């Protein structure tokens, strides 16, 4: 039914549950993600909850340069996240390798890794090293508005 679908979409926009995947980050982006949950920024106002399992998640927050070891595992985590889901590439390292783009352990930017599994994946890019919490909130809000 169209009405039920509209309601489900409204639910998805208002309640994005995120699962945080660190694919080899220096932890700077992870600390900034943690700041989002603090009283100063409080993403729970937008309905964002940090969930403990990818099966509960609507968005994967991927930080870090995707190393060779974690590349198949990141793809597995993406497969285990029920669709519809967003993949948020957080930070310069996840976008393009950042300062490590020439490094021996770099296995490709995160969006290539995800598109290998699912060419129609919805990917959000939030640049920065690390991105400011305001930038992260703006990115998530813009992405949800475009769903």
């Amino acid at each position, binding site marked *: 039914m169209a009405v039920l679908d509209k*309601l*489900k*979409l409204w*639910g998805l926009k*208002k309640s994005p549950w995120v699962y945080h995947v660190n694919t080899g980050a220096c932890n700077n982006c992870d600390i900034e993600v943690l700041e989002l949950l603090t009283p100063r920024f*409080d993403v*729970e*106002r937008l309905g964002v909850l940090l969930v*403990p*399992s990818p099966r509960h998640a609507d968005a994967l927050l991927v930080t870090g340069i995707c190393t060779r070891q974690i590349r198949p595992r990141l793809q597995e985590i993406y497969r285990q996240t029920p669709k519809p889901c967003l993949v948020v590439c957080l930070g310069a390292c996840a976008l393009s390798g950042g300062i490590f783009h020439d490094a021996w352990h770099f296995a490709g930017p995160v969006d290539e890794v995800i598109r290998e599994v699912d060419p129609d994946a919805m990917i959000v890019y939030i640049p920065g090293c690390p991105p400011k919490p305001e930038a992260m909130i703006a990115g998530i809000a813009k992405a949800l508005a475009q769903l």
Partner: protein
Amino acid sequence: MSAGSIIAVLLLAFVGTPVLGLVFKWVDRLLTARIQWRKGPPFYQPFADILKLLGKETLAGERASVGTFLLAPLLGFIGITVSAAVLWAVVLKPDTGFVGDLIIVVYFLVFPALGIILGGSASGSPHAGLGASREMKLVVAYELPFILAIAAVVLNAAGVEHAVPSFRFAQIHDAQSLSGPLLGSVSGFLAFLCAVAVTQAKLGLVPFDQAEAETELMGGAILEYSGPALALIYLSRAMLLFVMPMFVITVFWGGLALTGWGLLWTILKFVVLLIVIVLVRNTTARLRIDQAMTFFWFVVTPVALVACAISLQAFRGS
């Protein structure tokens, strides 16, 4: 009961209780946020969560037994809905019911935990199996003091009415309308404290949320759930947040009243219980499962036994 009241009870149990449960869940999240100096989600947040979960696909692990895995949340939902129906019938018409309907409600209130145990064991994941085994241990720990606390107030109620103690809501309601809330006496108050401790464990809230230990077990027994099955689990948890205080108020605190000043007083009772639950949830740390079992067996059970002994003495004396 007339057809009208039956329909009213069913509507209240199947429609009213989920809505009220989700409202209570919002209050819980709002209070948690305010305790942490945050703003908290808007009032429609739990409804948005449920709608969103209904729109996601359901995934099951490779090694899961899919039938049990998907039916287990239904078990919990049925348990809570039936208990809610009996409780609303007691609220609307206090003299209906039958001998033993209190036992039926206590029995059906075990179903949510059973659903978690079955679902976790059928998930095919070691984390979920660990969460299920912790929930089993917790149920073994808290069911005994729960029954003892209820037995204490049943004896009190029977003593007030000079009747044979029957585990019946009507008897408790009559006793409370005669001589005030059952938690007014010493044994009643001790039993009430035990029941509140058990409520925290039944709701799966800190310090007794070992089954769904977020930071340890990645979601524990509900780790593998997604989509509509997770929505059912979320809804059952929210309904339990409403049904358990309702049960405690009906048995210990004078029952619910739906008209006049009684309604205000009822809402206040709910608010007090909810505040106690949320405050304990936000200011304690999660216990280890053996610490939780020791707590229930060697602290709560002796208190409940003392309450039972006092009420037995009083009952024999009357």
